[in-house]
C-alpha cells in the first residue's frame, strides 16, 4: 500500500505536519523510532516566545505563531475535549515574559535589542524596576533594565504534540511508534518511500521532521542535511507556593540563542508550571549526543536562577533532564521541499523554538505541499539556501556514517 506522505518523526513538528497534511485530505503515516513526543519535544520547557528573537525571518514566523496558537488551542480542545477524563489539558498560558538585565553592562544591549524588536512590531515594553517588581514581586530588585513582552506564552509540549497527533489521526493519519527509518526507497533520483525496521513503506513523498536526528536520518536517505544536536538541561523544583508569575529571563538569554559557540552557555529562564513546579533553564552545549550528566552545568544554571530570584535558594530541585535541540548553522528552521531529492520534504532545525514554531511550520509545509498560498514567506527557510548547502558539504557521506554512532542511547529525564 502506498501512502501519500510518510512523516519521519512524531515530535511536535512531525505531528503538526501530519495534522496539516491529513486535514487537506492526504493519506499520512507518521513514524517514530521511539514513541510520540519522546525526543526534543519532551525535553524542553514549552516556550512560545517572541522575546528572544532578533528581527528577521524567525521573528516573523514567531509572530505568526503567537497569533496562531490561541486559535489552534481552541480548535484542538474543541475537537478532542478537555474535561477531566478527556484529553489532557494543553496548559496553554499567555502569561507574558519579563527579561531582566542583571549587570550594568547588560542593560543597554537589552534596551537596544528591545528597540529593534519594537521596530519589527513586537510588543516589547521597557519598564522600570518598580513596574518589574509589581509584575514579579520576588525578583531580585538589583536589576539594571527590564523589558516586558506580553506576547510570550507557554504550553505543555507533550500534550500539545499528542493533541496534534490525535487530531491528525482523526483526519485519517496513522501513527506508528517504534518504527525506525533505515534507508530510502528510490526510483532513480526520486525518493518513493522509506525502508524501515518494520518493512518498506512506499510513499509519494517523505517529510523529514526528526529534530536533532534529522541529519542522521537524512544520511540514511542519502542526503546531506546539516542539522546537529545542541544539548540543553532543565531543572524542575518541587511544587511550591506560586511566586513566579511569568516567564522571567536574564538578558543573557538573547546572546546565547544567537551564538554558535560550542562552549557551555547558560542563561536563566525561570517560570512556574500549571502543576506548581518551577522550571529553570537553560544551557546550551554542542557535545554531540553525549547524554552524560554534568553537574557543573547545573551549578551555572542554579547560580543564575538564584541571582534572579533569591528566594529560590531554598527551593528543592527534584529533577533534571536534558535534551537535544536541532541546530542549523544559520539558526533558521528548514521548511520545504528538498530540490536535490524529488519527493523529500524537510521540517526541522527549529533549535529551541520548535514548540512555538512547530504548528505554523507544519501548516507552512502543507501550504507549499498543496500549492496553497503560504501564510508567511517560506523563502528564508528553504532547504537550498546557501547556509544549508554549504554546511551540507561538511556532512559525512552516507557511507561514512554508521547509524549507531549517531544514535543517542537515551535521554536522562523528561519534562515537567
Amino acid at each position: 500500500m502506498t501512502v501519500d506522505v510518510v512523516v519521519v518523526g512524531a515530535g511536535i513538528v512531525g505531528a503538526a505536519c501530519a495534522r496539516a497534511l491529513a486535514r487537506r485530505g492526504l493519506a499520512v503515516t507518521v513514524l517514530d523510532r521511539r514513541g510520540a513526543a519522546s525526543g526534543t519535544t519532551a525535553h524542553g520547557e514549552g516556550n512560545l516566545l517572541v522575546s528572544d528573537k532578533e528581527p528577521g525571518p524567525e521573528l516573523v514566523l514567531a509572530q505568526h505563531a503567537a497569533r496562531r496558537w490561541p486559535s489552534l488551542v481552541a480548535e484542538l480542545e474543541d475537537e478532542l475535549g478537555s474535561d477531566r477524563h478527556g484529553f489532557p489539558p494543553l496548559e496553554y498560558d499567555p502569561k507574558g515574559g519579563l527579561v531582566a538585565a542583571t549587570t550594568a553592562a547588560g542593560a543597554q544591549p537589552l534596551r537596544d535589542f528591545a528597540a529593534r524588536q519594537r521596530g519589527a512590531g513586537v510588543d516589547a515594553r521597557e519598564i522600570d524596576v518598580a513596574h518589574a517588581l509589581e509584575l514579579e514581586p520576588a525578583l531580585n530588585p538589583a536589576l539594571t533594565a527590564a523589558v516586558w513582552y506580553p506576547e510570550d506564552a507557554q504550553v505543555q509540549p507533550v500534550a500539545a504534540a499528542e493533541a496534534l497527533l490525535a487530531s491528525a489521526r482523526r483526519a485519517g493519519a496513522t501513527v506508528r511508534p517504534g518504527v525506525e527509518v533505515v534507508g530510502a526507497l528510490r526510483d532513480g533520483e526520486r525518493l518513493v518511500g522509506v525502508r524501515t525496521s518494520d518493512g518498506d513503506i512506499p510513499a509519494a513523498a517523505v517529510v523529514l521532521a526528526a529534530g536533532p536526528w534529522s541529519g542522521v536520518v537524512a544520511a540514511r536517505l542519502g542526503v546531506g542535511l546539516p542539522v546537529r544536536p545542541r544539548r540543553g538541561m532543565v531543572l524542575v523544583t518541587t511544587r511550591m507556593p506560586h511566586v513566579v508569575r511569568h516567564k522571567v529571563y536574564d538578558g543573557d538569554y538573547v546572546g546565547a540563542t544567537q551564538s554558535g559557540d560550542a562552549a557551555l552557555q547558560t542563561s536563566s529562564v525561570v517560570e512556574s508550571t500549571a502543576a506548581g513546579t518551577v522550571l529553570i533553564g537553560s544551557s546550551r552545549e554542542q557535545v554531540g549526543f553525549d547524554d552524560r550528566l554534568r553537574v557543573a552545568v547545573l551549578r551555572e544554571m542554579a547560580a543564575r536562577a538564584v541571582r534572579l530570584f533569591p528566594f529560590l535558594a531554598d527551593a528543592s530541585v527534584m529533577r533534571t533532564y536534558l535534551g537535544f535541540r536541532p541546530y542549523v548553522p544559520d539558526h533558521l528552521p528548514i521548511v520545504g521541499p528538498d530540490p536535490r531529492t524529488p519527493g523529500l520534504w524537510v521540517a526541522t532545525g527549529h533549535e529551541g523554538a520548535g514548540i512555538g514554531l512547530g504548528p505554523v511550520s507544519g501548516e507552512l509545509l502543507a501550504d507549499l505541499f498543496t500549492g496553497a498560498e503560504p501564510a508567511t514567506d517560506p523563502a528564508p527557510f528553504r532547504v537550498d539556501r546557501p547556509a544549508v548547502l554549504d554546511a551540507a558539504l561538511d556532512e559525512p557521506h552516507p557511507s561514512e556514517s554508521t547509524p549507531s554512532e549517531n544514535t543517542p542511547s537515551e535521554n536522562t529525564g523528561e519534562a515537567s
Partner: protein
Amino acid sequence: MSRRTVVVVGAGPAGLSAARAAARAGADVTLLDASDQVGGQFWRHRALPGGGTAPDEPTFHHGWGTFTALRDVVATHPRVTLLTSAQVWALERLDAGVRLRVLVGPADGAGREHLTLTPDALVLATGAHDRTLPFPGWQLPGVTTAGAAQALAKAERVAVGDRVVVAGAGPFLLPVASSLLRTGARVLSVHEAATPASMARGWGARPAGLLGAAHKAGELGGYVGTLARHRVAYRLGEAVVAARGDGRVEEVTVARVDARWSPVPGTERTVAADAVCVSHGFTPRLELAVAAACAISPDRFVVVDDEQRTSAAGVWAAGELTGIGGAEAALAEGWVAGHHAASGAPDDAGLARAARRRARSADFARRLDAAHGIRGGWTSWLRDDTLVCRCEEVDAGTLRAAACATGSADLRSVRLTSRAGLGPCQARICGRTVAELVGATEPAPGGDTGSAPAVPDRRPLVVPVRLGDLATLPDVPAADAP
C-alpha cells in the same frame, strides 16, 4: 604508589561487608550512608547518645552480633573512612570512572557540606524499598508500608497504630508483625496474598520448609511462633482491598484472592483498624546504578557477574540491588564485591567462603517470586477513583484516560500528560504500577537501545537538592572535568 580507593555507597549488610572486605584486601575505603547511623534498613536501631545500644535492641534483630562486629570494624579500621549523613545526590560518568557528588549534614538540610569523590572503584549497596500496590483508600493517614512500621518500631519503638492490620506478600510481613507486637501494638491479623498452592510452589510443601536457606527457616519459624503466642491469625490468599475513614484509616476491607490475586466476590469483610501496613515486595534503589550506566535485568535488578562486577567499568554491586536475597546473601555478596573492588587476590580463602555462602542463597529470589510474586489480578481491586500516583494525586481512571486519549503506550508521554510519577517521589512509589496499568513498554534502563522509551528509574538527581546548594557547589579540578 597510593593505595586503591574504593567508595561503598550504603551501609546496610552488603555495604558494611563490602567495606570490611575491601579494607581487608588493602584498599582505602570510604563508606557512605545517607542515614546518621550504619546498619541500613535491616539493622536500623535506636540512636542513643554516645552511640550506645538500647538493652532491648538485640531482640529486634537477627544477627545483631554480626552487625556490631562490622560496625566496630568500619568505625575503627584505619583504612576505612565512615561518612554518615552523607547523601550521594548525583553520579557523573567521566571518560574513565565516575564522580560522586555528596552532601553531608542533616537530612534535607540547607547548607550541607559538599563532598566530591572520584574513587578507583565503586561498590553500590543501595538496597531496596517496599513496593506497595495501590488500593482504594491507601492514601489515608494510617496506611503505611510494612517497611515504615518496621523502621519506626526498630528505630524509635513507635507503633504506627493501636489496632494494626498487616497485609501484602512475602516473608517480610512476619518480622514486621513481630516488631509491631514488641512495640505494644495489637496486630489484628496478617494477610498474605499468596495462596497456599503458590507458597508450596515456592518454598516446598512442608510448612517448616518455608525457606530453602536453613537460617531463614529458623528465623521465620520464630516469627510464626510469636504470632501464634499472640493469637495473631496468619491468613494466606487474602488481601486488603480497600481502606476507609474520615481523614485517617478507620476500617479496611479484607477479601480472599484467587491464585492471580483477583478478589473473590462475596468474601469481603470489614475490619476496624487504625493502621494498615501493606507491602507486596521490594524494589531496588537503582538510581546510582542507572546513572553509572550499569546493565539492568528485565526484572529490574543490577546485572552482576561472579565477582559482583556490573557492566559499568569500575562499578560493583551487592545486596538487594542485585536481587532480593535477604541479609545473609547481602553479607556474602558484599564480601565478594568489596574484595574484587579492592583488587583482592582471586585465591583468597575468605573470598571462597563468602562465595559458598552466597551460593546457599542463590535460589532465594526465584523461590520468593514463585511464592509471593505480584500477580496481575490485583488490578481488579482498583476503582477509577483509586489514586495511583500519590504525589500528584492521579487516579486510575485519569491515567487510563490519558493513555487512551493520546493513544500512547509510551510511558514518558503518559506520565507527562497525566502527571503520574512527576511529583517529589519521582515515581519511586508508582512507577512500575503506572507502567503495568497502561501496558506501556518498559525496557530495562541502562541497556543500549536507541528505541528505549522513558525509564522510570532514571533519576539523575538521586534526591532533591536545594537550588542554593547547587549554586554554591565548589569547583572540581579541571583535570577531573568530563
